[in-house]
């Protein structure tokens, strides 16, 4: 029996009440006539809702036209072996080192399905609220290209493993915020092709088959997006999802997450879609946003000049340098892939037990996390930040489990901790501070044991060299005393309290970071944390933070 998730109503009432101050209305109204403002929200819940952001500078001027955007996303799964043979895949391996007769398409070889691929596909299907095909099959998609060893790609055609789902997205606050639900048409399993390496002279090309046969999930969205930021946020949410699920690293630079975007424009009120253009070569979400908005403007301009016949069904490449899209190839008629059922592979039959087990094992997904954080009373900015990265979310959740106040924990994580991570180029999983100690720190401040200021100092020590809040507080007490009566606390643990020594360290750090110093003096005072961290590092964690910060504060302001 298939697990079917019904597509719900786009937005719930809570959503509306929460977003007071933000106006919702139908896209048509928003784009065409301002007098329609505020109308018809209640009876058009099923329509696409668009939030009118207070600042819309980045959105293209669409003058009575609307853009229709659909996205095909390829997610490379990080299974140990390829989809149909036992070759490993490691990004960046020397060309043609992870290949075998099967993924090279030698005569007589046969594909054998890696069961992990099915498992990952089911997980993603469930996470995207899709209906699962309890019996699906593989098909062959035919075309000739040197990176396609067999002359066909093993894919799924008419019975994909998952269909008819949706994904919930919260737009970034700086883009006006707002909640969206985008439809998912289908998710299917397929294999990747190899890569061509073209020589600089263009006189020859080399084929690297390392990637051939690596499992992919293709996610096809409904044409529900209307702007670059919506499309970028959709893709970002897919990335979060696959990372939360642990099925892909979702890395766009390595090509583990690739988006092909279809953009068309039509006059508002017209039901027929305009000619669609496919855009490729966007290596970041921000590039996606800009590429799509550029393409919308380009098409709107042609429309408004009566030149809509100059919009061709074609593939265009986004060029980062020019910030424009350029024609890559015009479609010469429709490609006929001559799909037919793959006779070398049996049908994929899911059992209810298998699906139930995977369903129970699903982690909390980004959307659920955001709604939970939101209910805690966190601001949307906090919510989006914390739920953006599963490791950050895990850290946050773990500190909450130890009783930390959500708002305070969020502040610490988003403020000093994230600044530290950024400076040190570390991920939250790599720092010495544990969620437990963060909760201890918060509790100690809250119950008045230490001041916020002291707390901050302790935090830096925890980040830099670990330890417990309890022991550090005890040390602080000694340190406070030692300011007056310098003593050696313990032979193996020397705190540098000598202001001259610390001052020397501070000078050294300031001299080494003139750029940051300049920024600080230009008003970016949050950089103090960075400098403190650097000095602490310089002292090998032994500088007394209080003394350090006092001296640093003075030095930074250039008062001495």
């Amino acid at each position, binding site marked *: 029996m298939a697990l079917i998730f019904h597509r719900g109503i786009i937005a719930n009432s809570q959503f509306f009440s929460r977003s007071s101050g933000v106006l919702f209305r139908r896209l048509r109204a928003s784009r065409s006539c301002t007098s329609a403002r505020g109308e018809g929200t209640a009876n058009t819940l099923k329509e696409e809702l668009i939030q009118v952001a207070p600042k819309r500078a980045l959105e293209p001027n669409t003058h009575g036209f609307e853009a229709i955007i659909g996205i095909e996303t390829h997610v490379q799964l990080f299974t140990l072996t390829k989809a149909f043979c036992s070759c490993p895949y490691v990004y960046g391996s020397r060309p043609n080192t992870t290949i075998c*007769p099967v993924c*090279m*398409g*030698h*005569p*007589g*070889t*046969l*594909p*054998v*399905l890696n069961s992990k691929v099915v498992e990952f596909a089911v997980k993603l299907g469930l996470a995207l609220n899709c209906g699962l095909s309890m019996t699906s099959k593989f098909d*062959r998609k*035919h075309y*000739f290209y*040197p990176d396609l*060893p*067999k*002359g*066909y790609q093993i894919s799924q055609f008419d019975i994909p493993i998952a269909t008819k789902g949706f994904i919930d997205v919260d737009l970034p606050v700086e883009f006006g915020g707002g909640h969206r639900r985008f439809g998912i048409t289908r998710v299917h399993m397929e294999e990747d092709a190899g890569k061509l390496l073209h020589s600089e002279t263009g006189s020859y090309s080399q*084929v690297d*088959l390392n990637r051939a046969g690596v499992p992919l999930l293709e996610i096809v969205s409904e044409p529900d997006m209307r702007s670059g930021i919506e499309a970028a946020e959709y893709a970002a949410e897919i990335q979060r999802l696959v990372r939360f699920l642990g099925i892909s690293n979702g890395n766009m630079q390595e090509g583990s997450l690739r988006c092909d975007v279809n953009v068309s424009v039509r006059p508002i009120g017209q039901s027929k879609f305009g000619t669609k253009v496919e855009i490729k070569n966007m290596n970041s979400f921000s590039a996606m946003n800009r590429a799509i908005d550029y393409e919308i403007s380009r098409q709107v301009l042609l429309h408004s000049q009566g030149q809509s016949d100059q919009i061709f069904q074609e593939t265009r490449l986004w060029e980062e340098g020019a910030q424009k899209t350029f024609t890559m190839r015009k479609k010469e008629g*429709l490609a*006929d892939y*001559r*799909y*037919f059922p793959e*006779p*070398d*592979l*049996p049908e994929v039959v899911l059992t209810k037990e298998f699906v139930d087990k995977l369903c129970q094992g699903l982690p909390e997904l980004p959307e659920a996390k955001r709604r939970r954080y939101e209910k805690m009373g966190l601001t949307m900015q906090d919510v989006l930040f914390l739920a953006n990265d599963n490791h950050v979310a895990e850290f946050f959740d773990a500190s909450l489990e130890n009783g930390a106040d959500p708002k305070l924990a969020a502040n610490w994580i988003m403020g000093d901790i994230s600044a530290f991570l950024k400076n040190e180029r570390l991920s939250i999983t790599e720092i010495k501070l544990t969620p437990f100690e963060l909760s201890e720190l918060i509790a100690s401040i809250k119950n008045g044991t230490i001041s916020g200021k002291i707390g901050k100092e302790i935090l830096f020590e925890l980040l830099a060299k670990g330890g417990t809040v309890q022991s550090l507080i005890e040390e602080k007490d000694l340190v406070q005393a030692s300011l007056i009566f310098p003593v050696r606390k313990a032979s193996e643990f020397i705190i540098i309290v000598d202001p001259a020594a610390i001052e020397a360290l501070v000078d050294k750090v300031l001299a080494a970071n003139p750029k940051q110093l300049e920024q600080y003096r230009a008003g970016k005072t949050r950089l103090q944390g960075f400098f403190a961290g650097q000095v602490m590092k310089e002292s090998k964690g032994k500088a007394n933070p209080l003394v350090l910060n006092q001296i640093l504060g003075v030095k930074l302001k250039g008062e001495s």
Partner: protein
Amino acid sequence: MPPPPVRSPSRLLLCHCRLPFHISPQTRLPLSHNSSVRRRFHCSAVSAVSALSSDPQIAPTDLTTTPPSSHILSIRESLLSRRRTAADVAGEYLDRLRRTEPHIRSFLHVSETTMREAEEVDRLVASGKDLGPLAGVLVGVKDNICTAGMPSTGGSRILEGYRPPFDATAVRKLKEAGAIVIGKTNMDEFGMGSTTEGSGFQVTANPWDISRVPGGSSGGSAAAVSAKQCVVSLGSDTGGSVRQPASFCGVVGLKPTYGRVSRFGLMAYASSLDVIGCFGASVIDSAIVLNVVSGHDRFDSTSSTHEVPDYASFLMSTDHFESTPLKGLKVGMIRETIGDGVDVGVISSIKAAALHLEELGATITEVSLPSFSLGLPAYYVLASSEASSNLSRYDGVRYGNRATVDELNSLYGDSRADGLGPEVKMRILMGTYALSAGYYDAYYKRAQQVRTLIRKSFKDALEKMDILVSPAVPSPAYKIGEKVNDPLAMYAGDIMTVNVNLAGLPALVVPCGFVEGGSAGLPVGLQMIGSSFSEEKLLRIGHIFEQTLPNYRFVPPLL
């Protein structure tokens, strides 16, 4: 209708002797049921081996009963008894191969290491270690079955010189059982054809009349066994490519159930129909080979996990041999296969074979498979469709012949134009057409529906009957060149066999008679079809049939 072969009730006594005793006098006597298997091997070995070297040519009309012997068992026995060495046996086969090959041309490649491997077997014998069931047995392998380090071209110029980096699972299993691959046998390019005339390299001749085709596509494998160039051979059967040449060459040909033998290493023609099968001079030899190559393979998801019974050991037992050993067996003669368009000589041979089955105790009933005639068009649509896809990989990019060009489209176009033969190109075109948008439903999908009907009609018939019988081919072997320009006539010759592939069923072809032609007559094979995974039953019936069939001896005049 010519009279059926002479049958004498006294011959039925001979059915006790399921092993070859055609020279030594004691073979004329029924063996006691208590006689040990080993002793019988002992007797048979002597006779079989001497038969190989010194048998005078016996015309098919000779009334002496000479049931086919197991060459595998006689080789085994002579090795175990140290009567002969594997090198001896190999030398004998190689000599004959060299002598006959200029006329027959059944091999595309003859191994250079055969003698060395035979000596290796002899060392194993000398050391007293256990011998595999095929120790010292020379096996011919159809050229579309991959053999590591040995050329494997599938009969196509596009793979000229290609040496696979791995052994097909079936070949690996043969080698593990001690077999020696003597060479690669000729075939119609990628299995597409019924004569071997479609080979990209050479035409094989029928050992019964070298002006005639050996059948195809596994013509080289059938001719090689018929001419005793090798002991047994592997073929592949997509639409009859084992059974039809077996019939033409007067050897036993077995097409197992789809999935019984791993296809890993078999160059795909039509993946949903392709099966690796085998040829032998006797049913026992085919059974022993099937035993070795059968079973699930983790490299082929379509291979079956169905248990593999010991096909050969079942045939050892003489306990089931009575005066009517097939008593109670319900045999259905497929009405559609013995009517219009079928050679009268073939029909009479098949009817005679049916009478023989009756004498063995079986009851023969005519059955009708109404969807039978639909099989041929459905087969050609499905097989061509799958072929158009499977052969896409021969593009000259990674292996095989590559045209010298400076542009990508020509790389594909020229490599394929130069490397592939006309029959292959025609089927790729047909298949590409059948799978094209707008035609898929009318051709591919419709053909799949026909396939479902055929499967069902066989299932229904095999619920009422134990086995079905028919000719393997509507005619005996025809002249080389006779049908080259008439592909439809050639395709029509597959009518008896393609339905079985569409239904995925096992079928055994056993020589059953002759029709006029050549210097010594041309053999005719009886096709026995069973339900899925009933190879054991087919082999048992085929074995009894073969060992009791009077008057015929299927040794071609060439030898």
